[in-house]
C-alpha cells in the first residue's frame, strides 16, 4: 500500500455531530491519525440517531455503535472515552494534545471554556498546535453564546430565505446542509493551510471558523447585492437570472423508485442554442422557433407558459430517458436522484466507485461516502469502520499518551475514562 499523504499528522478530534467530525473524517481518509475524544457523559447525539442498522428480522439494532449517521462521519478514527467534565479528564486531554498536531472542536465557546480548551490554554501545552474552533457564531462577539445547530443555522445564514418557491414561507432546504460540506470543507482547507504555514515557519496557530461567516461566504450574490446595490433579493424557486428554462419537470412515475415514485428531470438552457436543442430533442422542433420562446428575454417573459409546455412534454417520459436524450443533444439535464439512485441505480456513480462498503463489527456491512477529491497518486480511502465508543481508550492512553497500566487503572476507577 502506498503511503497516504497525511500520514504522520495526528489530530485530536474533540468535536461532535456533523460539522466537526466530518472535518476529521476527511483528514482520516487521507491518512491522518484521528483520535475522536468522546464521552458517555456528553454523548455525541448522532450515536443515538437514525438511521440504525437492521437485524435480519427487520428490527433496528440498538446501542451506541449502530447509527449510520454517526458511522459515516467517523471512519477509521480511534475512539478515546474521556470525561472532560472532571479535572483529571482535562489533564489527560492536555497530555494528548501535547502529542497532537491538530486540535479540532465545534463545541460552543461556553463548553470550550468550561473544559479549559481555549487556544490560550492549549498553546501553552503545545505551542506548535494548530487548533481549529468551529462554533456556530464565533468564539467572541455579542451572539457567541447563541444556541443552535444545523436546523437553526440554516435560516440564520440566509439559505432559507433565498431557497424555495416565492409563494411558500422560507421553511428551509430539507437538511442541515451547511454541516456536511461547507463548514467541514472550509475547516479542512484552513487546517491544511496552517499545516503548510507551520512547515515553513515552525509556528502553530488558532483557526476560528464561525459557521455563520463560513456559510454566508457561499451565499451567492445575495448579500453583495444588498451591500453594493442596496436591494434585498429573495428566493425564486428553481429559476435562474441567466438561464431559461431552468427547473425541474415532472416525468412518468417509477414504481421501482421505492417510496419516491414521482420522478423529475432538471433542465438548464443557458443559451438560445441550448433551448432549441432541448425542444428538438424532446420532439418539438416547432416550439424551438416559436417567437414566444425564441430569445432569452422572450422565454423569461413567458416562463410560466414555457415551464407548463415542457412539463407536458416530459410527463410521459421516463426521467432517465429524458435526461439521456437531452444530454445527447448537449443540453445540461439530469434526473432528480434519490439515495437509491445514487447507491444502486446510477451507472456513473457505480463506475467511479465513489461509495465504499466497510464491514463494521456491530452495524454490519455499510456504505460510506468516499473521498470526493480523487487524487491520482496519493488517493484517499475509507480507512476502516467507525470506532465503537471507547474502542481505543487503552491503546490511545498507552501508546500515544504514554500512560502506564497503573495510571490507566486509576483513571478507570476514578471514572475519568468514561
Amino acid at each position: 500500500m502506498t503511503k497516504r499523504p497525511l500520514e504522520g499528522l495526528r489530530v485530536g478530534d474533540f468535536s461532535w455531530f456533523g460539522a466537526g467530525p466530518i472535518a476529521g473524517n476527511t483528514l482520516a481518509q487521507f491518512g491522518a491519525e484521528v483520535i475522536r475524544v468522546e464521552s458517555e457523559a456528553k454523548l455525541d447525539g448522532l450515536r443515538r440517531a437514525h438511521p440504525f442498522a437492521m437485524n435480519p428480522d427487520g428490527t433496528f439494532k440498538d446501542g451506541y455503535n449502530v447509527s449510520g449517521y454517526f458511522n459515516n462521519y467517523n471512519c477509521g478514527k480511534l475512539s478515546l472515552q474521556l470525561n472532560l467534565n472532571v479535572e483529571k479528564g482535562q489533564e489527560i486531554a492536555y497530555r494528548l494534545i501535547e502529542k497532537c498536531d491538530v486540535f479540532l472542536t465545534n463545541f460552543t465557546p461556553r463548553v470550550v471554556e468550561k473544559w479549559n480548551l481555549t487556544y490560550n490554554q492549549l498553546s501553552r501545552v503545545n505551542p506548535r498546535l494548530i487548533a481549529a474552533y468551529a462554533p456556530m457564531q464565533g468564539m467572541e462577539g455579542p451572539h457567541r453564546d447563541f444556541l443552535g445547530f444545523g436546523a437553526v443555522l440554516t435560516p440564520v445564514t440566509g439559505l432559507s430565505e433565498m431557497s424555495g418557491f416565492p409563494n411558500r414561507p422560507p421553511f428551509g432546504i430539507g437538511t442541515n446542509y451547511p454541516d456536511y460540506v461547507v463548514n467541514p470543507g472550509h475547516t479542512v482547507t484552513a487546517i491544511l493551510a496552517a499545516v503548510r504555514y507551520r512547515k515553513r515557519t515552525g509556528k502553530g496557530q488558532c483557526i476560528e471558523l464561525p459557521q455563520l461567516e463560513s456559510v454566508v461566504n457561499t451565499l451567492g450574490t445575495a448579500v453583495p447585492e444588498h451591500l453594493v446595490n442596496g436591494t434585498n433579493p429573495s428566493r425564486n424557486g428553481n429559476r435562474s437570472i441567466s438561464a431559461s428554462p431552468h427547473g425541474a419537470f415532472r416525468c412518468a412515475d417509477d414504481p421501482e423508485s421505492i417510496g419516491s415514485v414521482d420522478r423529475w428531470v432538471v433542465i438548464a438552457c443557458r443559451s438560445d442554442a441550448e433551448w432549441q436543442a432541448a425542444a428538438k430533442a424532446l420532439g418539438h422542433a416547432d416550439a424551438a422557433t416559436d417567437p414566444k420562446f425564441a430569445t432569452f428575454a422572450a422565454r423569461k417573459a413567458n416562463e410560466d407558459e414555457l415551464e407548463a409546455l415542457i412539463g407536458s412534454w416530459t410527463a410521459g417520459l421516463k426521467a432517465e430517458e429524458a435526461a439521456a436524450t437531452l444530454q445527447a443533444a448537449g443540453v445540461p439535464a439530469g434526473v432528480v436522484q434519490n439515495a437509491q439512485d445514487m447507491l444502486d441505480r446510477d451507472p456513473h456513480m457505480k463506475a467511479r466507485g465513489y461509495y465504499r462498503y466497510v464491514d463494521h463489527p456491530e452495524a454490519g456491512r455499510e456504505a460510506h461516502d468516499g473521498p470526493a477529491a480523487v487524487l491520482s497518486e496519493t488517493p484517499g480511502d475509507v480507512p476502516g469502520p467507525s470506532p465503537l465508543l471507547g474502542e481505543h481508550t487503552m491503546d490511545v492512553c498507552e501508546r500515544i499518551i504514554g500512560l502506564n497500566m497503573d495510571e490507566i487503572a486509576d483513571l478507570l476507577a476514578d471514572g475519568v475514562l468514561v
Partner: protein
Amino acid sequence: MVERALEGVRVVEFTDETGSYCGKLLADLGADVIKVEPPGGGRQRNAGPFVTGHDGEPDASLAFWVHNTSKKSVVLDLDSPAGQAKAKQLALSADIVVEDNPVGYLAARGLGYAQLHAEKPSLVYASVTGFGQTGPHATWAYSDIVGQAMGGLMTLAGEMADPPNMIYGHQADISASIHAAQGVMIALLHAEETGQGQQVDVSAQEACSMSQETAMQSWDFQKKNRVRTGELGAIPLRLPGAGTLKTKDGYVLLFIIAPAGEDLPALVDWMREEGMQEDLDEEPYREIISALNMGFLTQIMGDPARAAQVIGHLPHINDVIGRFFESKTAKEAYEEGQHRRLLIGIVSTPADLAENTQLRTRGWYIRFPNPAGDSTVEFPGPPYRLSESPATVQRPPRLGEHTEAILGAL
C-alpha cells in the same frame, strides 16, 4: 510583513462557474492566483446580477466577484495557437492548475493534465467538473442545478406538491470547489515534500453526496428513500415552539422543543411579561406546555387516546404563540429569544445579514475598491480567521487587468 499561508504558491486557473470558488479560497489565503479568461470573459463574467448602472459589463458582475476575489486576470484566446502557447508557458510556471472545462477541452489545446505533467512532474492539476474525468457520464453537459439534482440534494428539499427545490447559491459548484480546495491542499503538501505532482479529480455530483444527510444510510440499511417533507418536516403536524413563524416584518424558525436551552414555559414567561400569554396559563394548555418536548411527543405517540387529546389543543396554542411573534420584528424575536436561551433563529434576508449584530460587531465585512467604478464597496469577509496567517479578501480583478504584466514577465 506577515507571511501568508500560501506564500509563494502560484495557481493558474482555467475556470468559470464550477471551479472558481476553489481558486478564491487559495487566493484569499495568499496564493498568487492567475485566472486565464477568454476574450470578453466567460459565463460568470457575463452573468448578472450586475452593479446597478453597469448592466452587462464584465467588470461589474457580482456573480463573478463573489467567486473571484484576490485573483489576477489574464486574457488569452485558447482557440489560437499563440494563445495556447502562452497559456502553456503560464501553466508551467505554476505550482497548481485548477480547471473546470468539459472533459478533453484543455487536452485538445495542449493544456491537459498528461501534457503538462509530462513537462512538470511536480504540478498539481485539479479538474473540477460536473461528473469527473472518468465514467459513462464524464462528458455530460453540466450546470449547477444538474449537480444538485444528480447529487441527491433536490429530492430532499421542497413541498411534495411542488417540484423538488434547488438550493440557492450554486451549491453544487460550491461543494465541488470546496472539495477541490481540500484535495489541492493535500496534493500541494505532498508535492512540496516529495516533488511528486498529481491530478485531483472532483465531480460535483459526488461532492453533493455527503449533503444527503441520512438519506444515504436510510437506503443502505433500511431500503427506504428519504423524500422532501416541506414546511412541516418528518412529523406532519404543526407543533408549538417549532417551525417557521411569521413576524411583523419577516420570519423566524423556532425549535424550542429540541433538547437544548429553555423549554416552552420560558416562552410563555416572556409572553406574560408583555401581556400576551392569553389563556396559556390555564388548563389544559398549561399542562401541555409544561410537558411539551421531543421526549413527550415520542411518549404520547404510544398512547393514541392521550395523543388525540393533546393534538386537539395544539392549534390554539399555536395561534396564541403565532400572535405573539407577529407582534415582534424578526430581529427582536431572534435576539431577545436567544438572550432568554430559547432556540430561535432569524430567517435572515440579505439585508438582515448585512446588518447582523454579530457580523457587524466582529467587523466581518471588508471594503475594497469597486472594480467597476471609483467608489469603494463593502463585501463579505473570508470564511475563517487564522491567527498567524490570516485569509484576506482583496477586490476581484478587472477583465485582463494583468495580461501585460504577467505575460511580459514570463
